[in-house]
């Protein structure tokens, strides 16, 4: 704030102290404090990384369980490319070049879909199993065909994920009856409880930066939630600007389109606000260059169409 000692490269110095490790601006009034604690933050991050590394590298009985335990999972887990085969259909298909730009240019680059490392499979499979179970439960209960995308289903799953982990254990298909555990149910069950407890503990301690993208995907159960081309279809009206207005597809499903506004003009109302807000959303964040902003625009637009009752919210 005062005279900077390293006058040689002031912009760089300013940059380093005005942004945190995630690239977010540190408020002027907090810069001093942030600087003081910077080494502590760094040490903590290293400690977190080590703990997670240790956890993920440690061979665990339980880690095998979902694979052997639920036959339905088997084909997925067996093929190592499976995760990457579905997932990359995410955000970047429209303008892949933009993302490559972004990735190469910035140090704090945004993580695009990544393949989930094998050591995270156990988490992923656990969550996928939950999502599937929930979806099928919702479907049979309500007999809703649009159930997969309805808000209710979405939040129900969220809720079930916030249950204390050990309690959910038996609902994950890792019950004593599953073949993989049958040989020695007591030991496996115990180790799986311990495994989940440790995972819970680690999550509460924070997720190391390098693992965030992957862990998010694993915990969300991306694989079982992913609906092929759903995202792309939401964005179709933008690609075919001319006749785009007729393409209200998923909004037109009426599943949760109970807003007072009628479908056709709804996204356009948000469009203006989104355009206004893009430049002032974390201005200067390294991930929000041209390509990053375009990605954010698509994401916000798609979400507004996916969930019109919320639409766009800053």
């Amino acid at each position, binding site marked *: 704030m005062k005279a900077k000692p390293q006058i040689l490269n002031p912009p760089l110095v300013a940059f380093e102290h005005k942004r945190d490790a995630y690239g977010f601006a540190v408020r002027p009034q907090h810069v001093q404090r942030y600087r003081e604690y910077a080494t502590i933050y760094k040490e903590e991050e290293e400690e977190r990384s080590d703990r997670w590394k240790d956890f993920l590298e440690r061979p665990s009985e339980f880690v095998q369980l979902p694979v052997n335990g639920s036959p339905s999972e088997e084909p997925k887990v067996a093929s190592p490319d499976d995760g990457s085969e579905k997932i990359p259909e995410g955000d970047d298909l429209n303008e892949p070049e933009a993302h490559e730009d972004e990735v190469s240019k910035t140090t704090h680059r945004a993580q695009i879909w990544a393949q989930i490392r094998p050591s995270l499979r156990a988490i992923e499979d656990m969550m996928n199993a939950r999502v599937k179970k929930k979806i099928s439960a919702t479907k049979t209960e309500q007999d809703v065909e649009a159930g997969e995308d309805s808000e209710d289903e979405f939040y129900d799953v969220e809720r079930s994920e916030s249950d204390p982990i050990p309690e959910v254990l038996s609902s994950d298909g890792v019950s004593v009856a599953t073949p993989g555990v049958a040989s020695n149910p007591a030991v496996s069950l115990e180790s799986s409880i311990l495994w989940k407890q440790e995972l819970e503990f680690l999550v509460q301690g924070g997720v190391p930066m390098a693992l965030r993208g992957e862990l998010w995907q694993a915990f969300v159960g991306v694989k079982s939630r992913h609906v092929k081309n759903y995202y792309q279809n939401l964005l179709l009206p933008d690609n075919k600007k001319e006749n785009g207005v007729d393409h209200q597809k998923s909004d037109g499903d009426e599943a949760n389109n109970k807003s007072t506004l009628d479908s056709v003009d709804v996204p356009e109302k948000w469009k203006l606000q989104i355009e206004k807000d893009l430049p002032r959303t974390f201005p200067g964040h390294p991930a929000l260059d041209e390509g990053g902003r375009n990605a954010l625009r698509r994401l916000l637009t798609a979400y507004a169409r996916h969930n019109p009752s*919320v639409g766009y*919210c800053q």
Partner: protein
Amino acid sequence: MSYAYLFKYIIIGDTGVGKSCLLLQFTDKRFQPVHDLTIGVEFGARMITIDNKPIKLQIWDTAGQESFRSITRSYYRGAAGALLVYDITRRETFNHLASWLEDARQHANANMTIMLIGNKSDLAHRRAVSTEEGEQFAKENGLIFMEASAKTAQNVEEAFINTAGTIYKKIQDGVFDVSNESYGIKVGYGGIPGPSGGKDGSASQAGGCCS
């Protein structure tokens, strides 16, 4: 730092009218052409002097987007002053003033001082609301009015300080029971005790947020 009084302010108005920029100009004397979005509420504080008494302004800067309205409403309580801001280059932000005012009347205490600000007066060439219209609206609704520019700092100090002056005068006139913090006024150590004295034990909800 000790103060005679602390006044709680709230800044309201449509999204993008420049609420946060006005605050930044007032507290830091600088202008950010691209200011971050305000999510929920932000805080700022500054000491001013009125009638030779140090007065601390504690300013709650709110998000303007419609989705945040229900949250914003909860911040009116216990505010002594409000800056109601519109953008002179965007007509719709002026048209929405009535609905903002209705919120304020409904959720704030009746004695809250409201200052109407037509911001971005530096962009006079793109003006969509005339000064007279602003004045007229203010007059009809009993507000103080000013056009200001967070960019050039024109009238920014004045807006905050005149509001404080009006509040101060209301205190002098005995409009407020200053020991009752729901009016958005707190008596400090160096202050003049109200009828029942300044209570430091009853922390206001804004507590030590920005001291």
